[in-house]
């Protein structure tokens, strides 16, 4: 605040003074201890996927808080048909589902908020997994990154559990399948199984609803925040255009692919075949394998998978982090990705992946086919990636020995070539056509999701504008 007297007094001065005053006091808090970088030039979003995950977490928190006002965490009573009459579902049956349905159909803005919440939950799981693999391939789990890595893995597992408790709360048949499987696996865990199952799931279904509600809206988010407090690195990158684009894409997805409430779970009606959410079909595939114990399939195998990632930093002791220097770990990561992909696809398919699923007898997967595809896929991915990385390393060494320049891309200001401009414009035109069709569909659907789509498009457009402005500033 140097030399205030010489300056002309402006209208906004009191406000600026207040902001300055606040800012100076905030320096005594933790808030300004965080170093948040707002990059002025474009950097790859892969580097700050964790921050994007945090932003989606905040979106989830806000939309979830709004949904709290209308959700009933109560299962109610589903009396069976009186003898000799046809079954009429009671009003009190599955009140949790009824409340979700009313959020979707009756509550003003309910469908929009629920759609954002649903698509953001998918985005959060996806971003967290992408974040993990990006850091893994970048070698950012060793060299004093160990605690960040381990807390990150734990946070990822907790995120998936949070998503699990969330989609169970809808109490549709998909949620019911997840509840049944979760309860069975917990019951079959050794020694403490039965007690643990009673603590997590309660005894009655009303217990279950209120317990999962407590887990989903309070206990697990608090645990996540606590782990985040450790997981948060000191230097954060907050790129407003990319954050806005991610938010916009979530909203656009909600507008284009509105999520339905699903089939109501009613214990007095025969249930239909259903699949878990996409992040669980991999576990579901294991559970469906012929002759494989559900506890081993659904708990031990995923636990081993997570454990391997958890202990990676304690086995990869090398001091090199470049991908070409770590052929084993890179190949392992790619093989893990391949495994996830194969198993996830299996989870969606019938026993014979080539035919459509018709009845429940086709759900049991043949173990030789399953394990065979898994082994071959993994071995192929591992072998080819390992060979490629070794070949590349050898090539670099060769070029070094011959004192030739390495074929690395030089960093230079990014200027669009003619071809790129045409392909970009063409892509945008295709996108435009797609959006037109989608909007037309929304129109037929009484524009229920149009507002969501539009807000999303506004955010994406803002992101694009901010990005172009940034690039233009750079090139001058």
């Amino acid at each position, binding site marked *: 605040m140097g030399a205030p007297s010489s300056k002309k007094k402006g209208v906004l001065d009191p406000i600026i003074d207040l902001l300055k005053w606040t800012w100076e006091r905030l320096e005594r808090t933790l808030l300004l201890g965080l170093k948040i970088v707002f990059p002025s030039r474009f950097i790859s979003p892969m580097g700050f996927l964790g921050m994007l995950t945090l932003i989606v977490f905040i979106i989830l928190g806000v939309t979830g808080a709004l949904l709290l006002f209308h959700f009933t965490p109560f299962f*109610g*009573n*589903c*009396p*069976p*048909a009186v*003898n*000799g009459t046809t079954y009429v579902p009671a009003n009190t049956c599955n009140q949790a589902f009824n409340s979700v349905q009313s959020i979707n159909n009756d509550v003003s803005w309910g469908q929009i908020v629920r759609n954002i919440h649903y698509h953001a939950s998918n985005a959060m799981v996806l971003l967290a997994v992408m974040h993990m693999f990006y850091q893994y391939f970048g070698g950012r789990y060793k060299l004093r990154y160990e605690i960040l890595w381990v807390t990150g893995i734990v946070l990822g597992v907790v995120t998936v559990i949070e998503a699990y408790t969330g989609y169970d709360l809808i109490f549709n048949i998909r949620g019911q*399948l997840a509840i*049944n*499987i979760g*309860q*069975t696996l917990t*019951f079959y865990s050794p020694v403490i199984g039965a*007690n643990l199952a*009673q*603590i997590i799931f*309660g*005894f*009655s*279904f*009303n*217990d279950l609803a209120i*317990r999962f509600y407590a887990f989903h809206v309070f206990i697990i988010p608090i645990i996540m925040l606590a782990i985040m407090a450790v997981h948060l690195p000191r230097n954060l990158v907050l790129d407003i255009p990319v954050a806005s684009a991610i938010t916009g894409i979530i909203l656009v997805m909600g507008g284009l692919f509105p999520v339905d409430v699903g089939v109501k779970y009613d*214990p*007095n009606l*025969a*249930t*239909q*075949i259903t699949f878990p959410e996409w992040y669980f079909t991999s576990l579901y595939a294991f*559970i*469906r394998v*012929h*002759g494989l*114990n*559900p506890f081993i399939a659904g708990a031990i195998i995923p636990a081993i998978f997570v454990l391997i990632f958890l202990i990676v930093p304690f086995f990869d002791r090398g001091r090199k982090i470049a991908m070409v220097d770590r052929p084993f770990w890179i190949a392992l990561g790619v093989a893990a990705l391949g495994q996830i992909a194969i198993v996830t696809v299996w989870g969606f398919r019938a026993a014979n992946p080539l035919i459509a699923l018709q*009845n*429940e*007898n086709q*759900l*049991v997967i043949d173990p030789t086919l399953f394990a065979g595809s898994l082994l071959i896929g993994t071995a192929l991915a591992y072998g080819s990636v390992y060979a490629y990385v070794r070949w590349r390393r050898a090539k670099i060494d060769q070029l070094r020995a011959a004192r030739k320049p390495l074929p690395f891309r030089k960093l230079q200001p990014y200027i669009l070539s003619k071809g790129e401009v045409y392909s970009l414009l063409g892509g945008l035109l295709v996108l435009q056509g797609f959006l037109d069709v989608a909007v037309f569909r929304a129109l037929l659907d009484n524009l229920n999701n149009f507002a969501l789509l539009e807000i999303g498009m506004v955010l994406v457009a803002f992101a694009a504008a901010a990005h172009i402005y940034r690039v233009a500033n750079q090139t001058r």
Partner: protein
Amino acid sequence: MDEKKPSTSTNSTPPTPTQPAASQPPNPTPVKSPLISRRRFLQGAVAASVVLAAASVGASGQILGPQIPTPLPAQVIADWASLDKKYQDVKGDLTTKGLYNESNYSQFFYWQYDSSVSPYYKNVIARLPDVDSSGNPLVNPFYPTDPILSHVVAFNTTCVHLRCLVNPIYAGNPGSGEFRLQCPCHGSQYRLADAVPVAGPAFDLGLNPLPQVELTVDSSGKISATGMRGTPGIGRT
């Protein structure tokens, strides 16, 4: 008891300094050696209070457990006359509209806990058809001699594989299959007569039979549930 140690007042040094303790033999006799030194007493007190605190925290963990509602008393769940009549009406009609329609020989009831508690206490009671498709007589193996209960079976419907609720079905084409209880989720099948798994994951994994509801019948033909052998979701062991 290491009553000498506190007098040297240090245990960080190597054991050699403890040797000079022999130079003061007259001291212990006038100063009456206490039963327990002050330090030991404090250590013990701290340890005991930590154990007590941990125990009370552990005990208060019981708040995590759910409240278990009181189970229902023995209860009339079906009437033999009406159950048998529906069966006798369609006995000769070997089609999916007649005998092979499960609603003509079975009905559901909730017992031990009513429908407001948990779907896992949904049970099925069935008039066991006299013969299966190949002509073998079907008899309830739990009450083989009772004139009424030998024709009635009752089981909990929670599949022991992954807890979906099973339904009575007629497996296969009419005339070639068998009366079963089938899980709609993963296709486990149980024999209707004794609920032993015969197909699907429950059979492949060698899981338990479904819990059996114990029945009694009074002189007027009212069938009551009196107990359950086994636990829903775990099965009859």
